[in-house]
Every structure is written in C-alpha cells, then in structure tokens.
C-alpha cells in the first residue's frame, strides 16, 4: 500500500471522495479501475471510476463530478490540448492530476503514467527484434484519432523505420512507408472503430493482399488476438510474427506458445492505484508527493518469453482474474 490510512475513525466517515476518469471503455481501464478501487479500500476513501464514451461524454461526466463536489480527479484526457477549459475548471474547483495521457498545458498538478510515444517506440523495437531481416509490417488499431493511440502508433512507426524519434510527426494512415535501408516497410494502419468483426476482417484482408507480410502489430488490447485468429485461419500462425500491446490473456498465452514475439505493457493497475494514493495525499495537503518534474513515471515494460510467466502471475494476483 501507499501513503497512510486516514487517521482513526471509520474511514468512510471523513474519507475524501475521489474520481478516476478513463478515456473510454476497455479492459485496460477496468484493470486500472480495480487498482483505483483497491487503493480506495486501503485508504478508506470513496472512489468513483468513470469510463466515458468519447470526448463529449468525458466533458459532461467531468462537469457532473465537479457538481458532486468531488475532492480530486485523475483523468486521462482524450484530447488534451482541446480540453484545457474543462481541465482547468476541474483544477480550480478540485484537485486534478492526469494519468495515461498528459495535459502539460493545463493546470493539472502532476502526471502519472508513461509516454505513449515512447511505448510505441518500444513496440517498434520489438518488431525490429522479431524481424532481423526486416519485412512488411501491418499496424492494426482501434481508432487513430485520439491522443494515446496516435502517439503510440507514431512511435511504433518511427522505431520500425529507424527514424530519429520525434513525437510531433503524424504519418497518414494509408500509404506504405519504407525505411532508409529499405529493410522495413510499414504497409499501413487499419482501423476498426472497436468493431471486432471488422478488426478480424482487416487482419484477414491484409493477409490476402500482402502474401509476404512479415508481422502484425496490434496496438489496442484486442488487436493482437484478432490478428492471431486471422493467422490461425490462414494457417500462418507462428509464421507471421505478432507484436502485441497491452496484456490481453490471449496475447500473453501467445508469448508463452511462441506465436507472439512480445508485448509492451503499461501498468494500468498502477495507474489506478497510484492516482488515488497521490490524490489522497494531495487532498490531505501533503504536497511532498509531487516530484519537481511533476511526473511519476510508471514506465511501459516489454514482456517476452523471458518474463511473461511471472508478469502474468502478478497480474492475476492483482486483478483476481
């Protein structure tokens, strides 16, 4: 556990009421939510986990949290530069920290998490490792038009193509891009709008169109398993590499079975847990928890055959799944 339990009395009695706001509805966030709830129990504070549908809903939910007189909010802004208003409003009326995706331009107290661009780079490196001879790579993603996914995708592409890291790039979705040395080709990025049937179809069609595709990168939790389904259907599972993102159990099993090269995992549980702990301290006016770079790094990790078992065991322990 982190921080200190509220002094004396039944916790609920004088515990703060804090909120953990995600940028959408996904397993990633249910895990984070569990972390937040756990911290809430330990600290005896009331925690509300909010999973909005899109930006409008996120703004509405924030407004209503403030109406409720919430004491602190940890949010993953969907589109930070354009949400300054609501973020600053929240910062003014409550305590605001960001997680998963930062909003440095806003008045948020601090940021917990990691840089999706860097995580993307790590993912790209995995691709290079998986394909020593290089080859054609197809990127699968749910949506490309929200901060976390576009940065993650860009990082991945830059690493694959061996470019100088520069998070300000934004390559178009469609056209193939080849690295200087001509070894690697990023065939494109296929979006599925969270429609999994569509996601599977995308992977299948990519296989049909690019017979000598060498690897799939699945940048949303559910993409790698869909890619694996497609490969199994085409009898190419294991032959075509799969590089995953996040910790879907199918992906992890794939790593064990050797059908998935590896995955880059963030630590959603820690996002939730840490966010609540920090908010609680801040609520108790203990500003010592704020590092001077206002950034608690919960770095993304690469999970591959070497460390998958213990990671998975730990995950199961935390989430009880």
């Amino acid at each position, binding site marked *: 556990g982190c921080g200190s339990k509220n002094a004396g009395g039944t916790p609920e009695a004088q515990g703060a009421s804090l909120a953990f706001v995600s940028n959408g*509805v996904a397993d990633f966030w249910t895990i984070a939510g569990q972390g937040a709830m756990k911290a809430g129990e330990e600290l005896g504070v009331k925690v*509300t986990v*909010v*999973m909005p*549908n*899109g*930006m*409008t809903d996120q*703004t*509405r*939910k924030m*407004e*209503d*949290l403030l*109406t*409720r*007189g919430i004491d602190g909010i940890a949010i993953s802004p*969907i*589109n930070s*530069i*354009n*949400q*300054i*208003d609501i973020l600053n409003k929240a910062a003014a009326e409550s305590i605001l920290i960001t997680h998963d995706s930062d909003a440095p*331009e806003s008045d948020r107290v601090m940021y917990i998490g990691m840089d999706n661009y860097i995580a993307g780079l790590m993912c790209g490196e995995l691709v290079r490792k998986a394909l020593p001879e290089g080859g054609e790579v197809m990127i699968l993603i749910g*949506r*490309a*038009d*929200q901060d976390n996914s*576009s940065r993650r995708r860009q990082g991945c592409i830059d690493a694959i193509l061996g470019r100088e890291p520069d998070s300000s790039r*934004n390559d*178009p*979705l469609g056209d193939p891009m080849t690295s200087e040395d001509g070894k690697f080709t990023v065939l494109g990025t296929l*979006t599925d*709008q969270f429609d999994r049937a569509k996601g599977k179809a995308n992977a299948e069609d990519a296989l049909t169109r690019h017979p000598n595709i060498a690897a799939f990168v699945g940048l949303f939790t559910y993409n790698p398993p869909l890619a694996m389904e497609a490969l199994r259907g085409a009898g190419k599972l294991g032959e075509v590499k799969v590089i995953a993102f996040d910790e879907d159990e199918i992906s992890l099993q794939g790593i064990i079975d050797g059908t998935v090269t590896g995955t880059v995992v963030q630590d959603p549980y820690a996002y939730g847990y840490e966010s609540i702990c920090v908010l609680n301290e801040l609520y108790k006016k203990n500003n010592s928890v704020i590092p001077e770079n206002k950034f608690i790094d919960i770095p993304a990790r690469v999970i591959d055959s070497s460390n998958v078992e213990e990671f998975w065991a730990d995950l199961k322990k935390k989430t009880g799944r």
Partner: protein
Amino acid sequence: MTGKEPGADSLLSRISQKLRAGGKVYGILGLLIMICVYTAASTDRFLLSGNIENLVHRTALFGILSIGAAFVIITGGIDLSIGSVVCLVGVLLPFLLTKHDWTVPAAVGAILMISLVIGLVHGLLVTKLRLQPFVVTLCGLLFYRGLARGITNDQSQGFGSGFQELRLIAKGRIPILGDAEGAFQLPATTLVLIVLAIVAAVFLNKTIYGRYLLALGNNPEAARYSGINTDRMVLLAYAICSMLAGVGGMLFVLDINAAQPSDFGNFYELYAIAAAVLGGCSLRGGEGSIIGVVIGSAVMVVLSNTINLVHPNYQNVEFAIIGAVILSGAVVDELVRRWLSARRAGMKVG
C-alpha cells in the same frame, strides 16, 4: 346522428385532441418533474445554479437537434443522418478555421450551406425519387461520417485555445439575475434554443405551412388533392432538420472545443428521435408539438445527470436506464389513453 350525440362527440373530439399532442406533453412534463423531484430529494447538489446551468445548456444542444428531427417525423419521415451531420459539421468548423484559416463568417456560412444542401438532397431523393426516408438517411448516416473521417484523415479537429469569442456563443453565460456569486446565469445556447423553439412552434401552429406539414403527414394524397405542393413542404422539413443539425453540430463542437471524426455525434440521431417521440411526435406522421420535444430532450439530459450525481456507480447501465424510462413512458402513455377512453365509454353507459 341523434340529438344527444353532438355534445358527447365534441367531448370525445376535444379529449382526443388533447390526447393528440397536449396530453402527451403533460405526460412527458410530469415525467420530467418526477425525475427532477427525485434527484433533488436525493442530493442537494442537483439544484445548484451551476448544475441547472449545465442541464439547460445540454438540453439546448440536444433540443435543437430534436426540433429538427420533429419536423421530419411530422411529415411521416425519419432522419437517421443527424448524428453524422453533427460529426461532419463538428470537424469541419475547426478544420476550416484552424487548418485552413478561413474567416469565421466564411466557415460558418459554408457549413450552413452544406447542411442546407444535405437536407435538400435528402428531401429531393424522398420526394422526387420516392425513396424511403429511412434508406436515404441511413446512407447519409454512413456517408457523412465517412466523409468527415476522410477529410480529416482520422484526426481530431479542435480550436485549441483560440476562437474564444466565437466559442462564447456556445459557452457564454448571461447574468440575467445579476452576477452575484452563484446566481443562475442563462447559457447562451439556451437562449438560442428558446428563440428557435418559439420560431418553430409559431411556424408549426400558426402558419399555413405548419398546417400543410401536419396535413400531409396525416394524409399526403388528400393534401396533394387540396392543392398543397407536398413535395416542396417535405423538402422544407428535411432542409430544416439538416440545418438545425448543422447549427447544433457547430454549437456542440464550440462547446466541447474539439471533435473526433470517428465518434463525434454517434447515436445523436437516436437521442433526437427518442426525444421527439417522447415529446409527442407520432412516427406515423401528422402529430407533434415543439415544446413536448424540448421537454423530451430535457428528460434524457436530466436522467443521465441523475445517474452521475446520485448513482455514479451505475454509469455503465446508464443506457439501460434511459431505455427503460423511455419505454415505460410510452407504455404508461398508452395505458392512460386506454383508461381514459374506457372511462368515457363508462360515463356514456352510466
């Protein structure tokens, strides 16, 4: 007919007329009041002027869409493209202003133009080619969102920290009760809704065109035989609907400050239609009341506010709750209707 019948008949007709729109309006108003009372009783934060401001503001945004939907529904048609028009407009406004440095008048003008054209195209396909409104606007639903994604290449469009003056249209608050701390201030959007609603209500109930719409929604043939240019009226209805969707879309994005092409306005057509139906529009056409529609959208807005304030842990079943409420609304309405006519029959016999 016998001598006694007239009196009874006029009672019948008067009641049935009340039931037509009036009754439904009272019904939905009652529902709204119930929800408000419940919420106010459950939390003292509900009646904070700030929350009221939020509610009337959100109601305004959805109300504008719903009024548009109502016009089409009154003609016996339907418009499934509202949400996608909201999306297209929502990304276009920032796109044109920030990425292409258009002037505000140019951008707004162009967007209103586009909405108008969209409405006219729908109308023409429905009237001249006799295509089914559901089909036409379903294609619209798919097309305009795809277009929005294509134009922006799947990137969110926003104003960043610019265009604050323009955004006042959507964010501004008017201190009608003086600017004392915590005093209620009227959101600009609410003002817009009030104006639009009044205009729409007058148009529908006081002008011949409104009468024409109701008539042709009720019986197109008879309207045509009475020398009404039904095609033009239907065209008008679709134009109004898309225009209002355009206005609403701009207000939405000005309020939210950015739009994600892939999900901005998703399902809004369904909310708008649901609000219109809740508000007393019959999808069979020929029936509808503007005030009812506005109240209808208020119900849905308040409902989700209730959940956020009172039952934050049930947020993920919010849709289930809204669906259940709409349905029970419809069921109760129907049962009351039957009970009333049973009563009438009873009165007559006794």
